[in-house]
């Protein structure tokens, strides 16, 4: 029997083990991963790994394998909470003392069938396949104008400026989720400058194939045909919550946990992309799909598992790197009633969002220093002087 049993072998799982080992945890740890790689961080998959600037060793998570039982290529598909058992696809069962769901999410699909030339990006094998195919493709279409597609378009255009890259989305705006109009405008400026094309308010109805069954055209809902030899689909993810369907833990949007990563069942926890977690700052349950969430929740949960009860109090934050520009998003960037722009230069800007005279979030373009300071202001619940914020000559640090 394992003391700690982790379902999932991604960033959150790996960092949890890494943190437990740093805390000198001595119990037995079982990890069940559907992949054949040790845990790794995912941000590079759409950027530096795709550009051959990094290899997996650069973002793999350091864990001491002598002290864990690592089950590669093993899918757990059932949990018996009453008897504290998990069951894999071959009906083999494993008992646990504490169970951690770190099983992440999976990409939403456009077609049920697998079609040659249609790709999704979730894991390192996906990224390897996309990388190989980009090289030989002329007309690349990215479906979905979310962060993943925008990072992939940036990577492709940086390496192959002459390749045709078109982003298609059903919405009239890019970045429908986790964004706002200020950020959309900043990002679109760089995408368009680098000749990425956008077809918004458009839907791919079907694909037309070559004789070898590979993709040749995509057909839009207005029957227009677009030449396409590589279609990369990035239309969001689903949390891997089917495993607990029918139990009290199930929620359409993940596995519900409190700010300690605890579910409503004793000794059962969740973290990372699959966790619909109580966010103390936003005062609501949110499921974050970010590096920061996987990294910081794993630290909190590791401490909780060894008996130091700590709440997760991170302010939601993530970054996206596109065309050598860095964008950072902190806190609540919608539902504001006022905003202030600190513009330092054409490509260096910070938007600060205010509600009821309180700072609630920020978006920064190439200005991480402001984000560091604003995070401190938010954490300390400081009531900032907005006149000072408006004055670009005043260092935000003075507000601390």
């Amino acid at each position, binding site marked *: 029997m394992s003391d700690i049993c982790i379902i999932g072998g991604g960033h959150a799982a790996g960092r949890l083990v890494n943190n437990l080992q740093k805390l000198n945890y001595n119990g037995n740890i079982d990890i069940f991963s559907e992949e054949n790689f040790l845990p790794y961080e995912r941000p590079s998959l759409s950027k530096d790994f795709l550009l051959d600037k990094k290899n997996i060793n650069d973002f793999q998570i350091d864990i001491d394998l002598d002290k864990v039982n690592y089950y590669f290529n093993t899918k757990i598909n059932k949990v018996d909470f009453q008897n504290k058992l998990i069951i894999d696809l071959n009906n083999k069962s494993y008992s646990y003392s504490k169970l951690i769901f770190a099983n992440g999410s999976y990409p939403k699909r456009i077609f049920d069938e697998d079609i040659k030339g249609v790709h999704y990006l979730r894991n390192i094998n996906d990224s390897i396949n996309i990388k190989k195919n980009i090289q030989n493709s002329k007309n690349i279409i990215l479906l979905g104008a979310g962060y993943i597609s925008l990072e992939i378009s940036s990577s492709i255009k940086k390496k192959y400026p002459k390749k045709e890259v078109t982003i298609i989305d059903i919405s009239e705006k890019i970045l429908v989720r986790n964004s706002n109009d200020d950020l959309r405008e900043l990002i679109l400026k760089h995408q368009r400058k680098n000749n990425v094309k956008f077809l918004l308010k458009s839907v791919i109805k079907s694909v037309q194939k070559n004789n070898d069954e590979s993709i040749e055209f995509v057909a839009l809902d207005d029957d227009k045909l677009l030449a396409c030899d590589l279609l990369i689909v990035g239309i969001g993810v689903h949390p891997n919550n089917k495993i607990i369907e029918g139990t009290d833990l199930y929620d359409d949007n993940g596995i519900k946990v409190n700010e300690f990563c605890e579910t409503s069942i004793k000794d059962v926890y969740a973290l990372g992309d699959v966790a619909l977690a109580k966010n103390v700052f936003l005062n609501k349950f949110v499921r974050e799909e970010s590096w920061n969430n996987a990294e910081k929740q794993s630290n909190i949960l590791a401490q909780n598992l060894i008996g130091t009860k700590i709440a997760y109090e991170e302010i939601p934050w993530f970054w996206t790197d596109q065309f050598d520009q860095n964008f950072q998003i902190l806190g609540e960037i919608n539902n504001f009633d006022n905003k202030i722009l600190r513009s330092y230069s054409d490509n260096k800007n910070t938007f600060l969002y205010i509600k009821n005279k309180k700072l609630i979030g920020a978006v920064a373009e190439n200005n*991480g220093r402001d984000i560091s300071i604003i995070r401190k202001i938010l954490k300390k619940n400081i009531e900032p002087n907005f006149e000072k914020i408006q004055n670009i000559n005043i260092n935000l640090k003075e507000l601390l």
Partner: protein
Amino acid sequence: MNDNENWVKTYSINDIDDEDVKEFHLPNGNKIAVYNINNSFYATDLFCTHEKVSLCDGFIDGDSIECPLHQGVFKISTGEVLESPPTEGLKIYLTKIENNFIYVNIN
């Protein structure tokens, strides 16, 4: 001066405000960051070990520097990683003050 000392003159101590950092280019072409932390002067490599970005655009909080790109944090005096994503520490250089100038040992 012994063999493992090669001191390079950088800024005057008056050139760098308290809790501030300035970029300096060494004669060998390497770039470093020179810090004033409460009138103690430190030097580290200029670039974050996670991605090649200048730490001079980062945020100094006490004895730590937060990278502007992905918010990794290093301890300025020792170079150690305090917060991920970087995993590799920052190279640090010994400093000394002579005649109000900050010297950095690049060996």
